[in-house]
């Protein structure tokens, strides 16, 4: 049994069902063939080894035909109350979204879309976006229609111009723009590691499904051969150096691709708009009332060079891993001071981004240290026994190093732990490998989770989590003394706490 509490939007059906742009008939096959490439390549290679190209050709035709059905089976309708989408060949799906539930509208144009003058519109609606449930994807509107739809949905007067990055109309305020000097931070984002893994994965799929071992053909063969000929020390140096250069170069390329032409502007109505991208352009709009905070995020390598990125905390925005994929970047990796200043401007001049925070005290600090060191110590104990029983000594040395790394992490984490309330915002801070300072409007907090392990209870600590419909859905105040956690809840949600407090109200 499931009881949905809010009432369903009233069905008012007057507008006509329409198709997406027929130009999508060019795009779908290309994308689907690209996706099926390793399998198709395998079919072709398997076929030609038997002297026949037919398996590959038939496979390609099937893929193309299936991809075309997507256009023929998709219909959309935009009524004054709803946006409705129907799609699917075998399993018909129908999705409707009430207009007043729309939080964000994201207009993206990939390379092919741009060549054909098309755009993909993603409409975000709130609570279930994190799992991709509440999103409506209209892939293949003309740019013109996409921008009009966005302006229409977000209740703004339409602006002239057809580009996804509209010309700055009078009244628009530019809050940030890419400074080419920021690109020097790109290698420290390590986004190239992901690229490397993707290439590695493609290599394995090709070897597995296509039966092609790239290490046996072409220039790669020569490289492998040359590496085999080197002494071990030299080989390690060369491979390490090669990987470092690879990651640095691909990270930089990734940064430029994602953030070229980055601009953050504020429309007169308060709506924020982020436009960015070199080949794939993307324009994300966030209504001001949906923007309930921001996170300043400093991954360790970026922190080491004094840089940070800023991410919006807004209802209806996906929060994925990797800032490039989500639509929520307010500032690409840039100097920390720029990020802090931006949060201040975006959230109407609040001091919450800079204000002093309360550290969590000695017990919390000890817990961070113990948790940092413990895995290494346990491992060392086991390996020590192994060594005493006649095993090799080097694993013990490695685990000893692990203890030191854990200690450093623990110290750094302990230093990061803090929270504060400032200007109507709850501010949380924590983390070492990725340090985050999050600013969340107190009005956006829905409820509270207070978690404590057996060991935390012995130390009198709890981990407090403020739940919200925006961003990461929950913001943590880790290892805070129990009384202080209750005080935070009481200060922000007095009505909630009042009925469940143990002591009578202080007079």
């Amino acid at each position, binding site marked *: 049994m499931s009881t*949905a509490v*809010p009432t369903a939007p009233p069905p008012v059906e007057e507008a006509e069902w329409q198709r997406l742009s027929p130009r999508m008939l060019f795009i779908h096959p290309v994308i689907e063939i690209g996706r099926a490439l390793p399998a198709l390549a395998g079919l072709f290679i398997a076929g030609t080894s038997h002297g026949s190209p037919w398996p590959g050709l038939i496979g390609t035709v099937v893929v193309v035909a299936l991809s075309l059905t997507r256009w023929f089976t998709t219909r959309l309708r935009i009524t004054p109350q709803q946006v409705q989408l129907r799609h699917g060949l075998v399993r018909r799906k129908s999705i409707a979204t009430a207009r007043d539930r729309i939080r964000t509208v994201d207009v993206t144009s990939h390379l092919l879309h741009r060549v054909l003058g098309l755009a993909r519109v993603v409409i975000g609606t709130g609570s279930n976006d994190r799992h991709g449930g509440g999103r409506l994807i209209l892939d293949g509107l003309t740019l013109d229609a996409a921008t009009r739809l966005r302006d229409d949905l977000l209740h703004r007067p339409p602006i002239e111009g057809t580009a996804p990055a509209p010309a700055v109309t009078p009244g628009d305020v530019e809050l940030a723009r890419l400074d080419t000097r920021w690109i020097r931070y790109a290698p420290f984002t390590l986004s190239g590691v992901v690229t490397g893994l993707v290439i590695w994965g493609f290599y394995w799929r090709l070897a597995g499904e296509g039966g092609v071992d790239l290490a046996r053909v072409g220039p790669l063969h020569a490289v492998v051969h040359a590496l085999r000929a080197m002494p071990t020390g030299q080989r390690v140096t060369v491979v390490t150096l090669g990987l470092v250069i690879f990651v640095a170069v691909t990270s930089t390329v990734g940064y430029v691709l994602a953030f070229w032409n980055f601009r953050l502007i504020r429309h007169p109505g308060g709506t924020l708009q982020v436009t960015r991208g070199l080949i794939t352009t993307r324009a994300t709009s966030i209504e001001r009332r949906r923007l309930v905070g921001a996170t300043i995020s400093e991954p360790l390598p970026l922190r080491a060079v004094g840089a940070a990125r800023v991410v919006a905390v807004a209802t209806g925005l996906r929060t994925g891993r990797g800032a490039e994929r989500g639509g929520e970047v307010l500032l690409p990796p840039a100097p920390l001071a720029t990020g802090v200043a931006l949060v201040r401007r975006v959230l109407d001049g609040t001091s919450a981004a800079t204000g002093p925070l309360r550290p969590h005290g000695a017990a919390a600090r000890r817990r961070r240290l113990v948790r940092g060191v413990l895995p290494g110590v346990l491992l060392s104990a086991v390996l020590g026994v192994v060594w005493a029983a006649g095993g090799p000594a080097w694993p013990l040395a490695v685990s000893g190093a692990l203890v030191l790394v854990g200690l450093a992490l623990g110290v750094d984490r302990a230093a990061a732990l803090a929270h504060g309330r400032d200007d109507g915002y709850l501010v949380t801070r924590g983390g070492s490998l990725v340090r985050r300072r999050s600013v969340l409007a107190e009005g956006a907090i829905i409820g509270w989770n*207070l978690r404590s392990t057996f060991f935390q209870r012995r130390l009198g600590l709890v981990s407090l989590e403020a739940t919200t*419909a925006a961003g990461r*859905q*929950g913001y943590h105040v880790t290892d805070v003394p129990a*009384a202080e956690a*209750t005080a935070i*809840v009481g200060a922000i949600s007095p009505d909630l706490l009042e009925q469940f407090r143990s*002591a009578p109200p202080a007079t």
Partner: protein
Amino acid sequence: MTDVLLRDPAHLVSRRARAYWLVRALPGWLLIGGVLTAVLVGAGWSTPVTGSIVWTAIGLAVLHLVVMPWWRFRVHRWEVTDTAVYTQSGWFDQERRIAPIARVQTVDIERGPFEQLFGLANVTVTTASARGPLKIHALDRGTAEHIVAWLTERAQTAGGDGT
């Protein structure tokens, strides 16, 4: 500032909950026991090492099956007021969750095979936050239905879209 702490939620869950938790934990231990037996028989019984492994596993199982249901029963509590839902759950690790009824989006009752065996039901209350569902496990069926009816009615009068 005086130290203000949260009190426990007012109500315990069903008295049959202890038996329910005990029975629900059994299959896991039976599986572990089965795998362990298969491995040890395969390796040849009765060295001192295998003996100590078996006794450790049996000891852990008994400890878990005796301590966990009793401990859980002392921790699991719930309370629904005019304006809020408050739950407490867990045993070794414990969690309290508070949410205002005005922000409640859905209320679910769920009865799996173990719940039906003991005439129990689990209630899940969701809010607009993916991190915020409140779960009350092992309630009497009647109590669970009562809670759902109450919450549905209260949430409807509260209105709003819950975000």
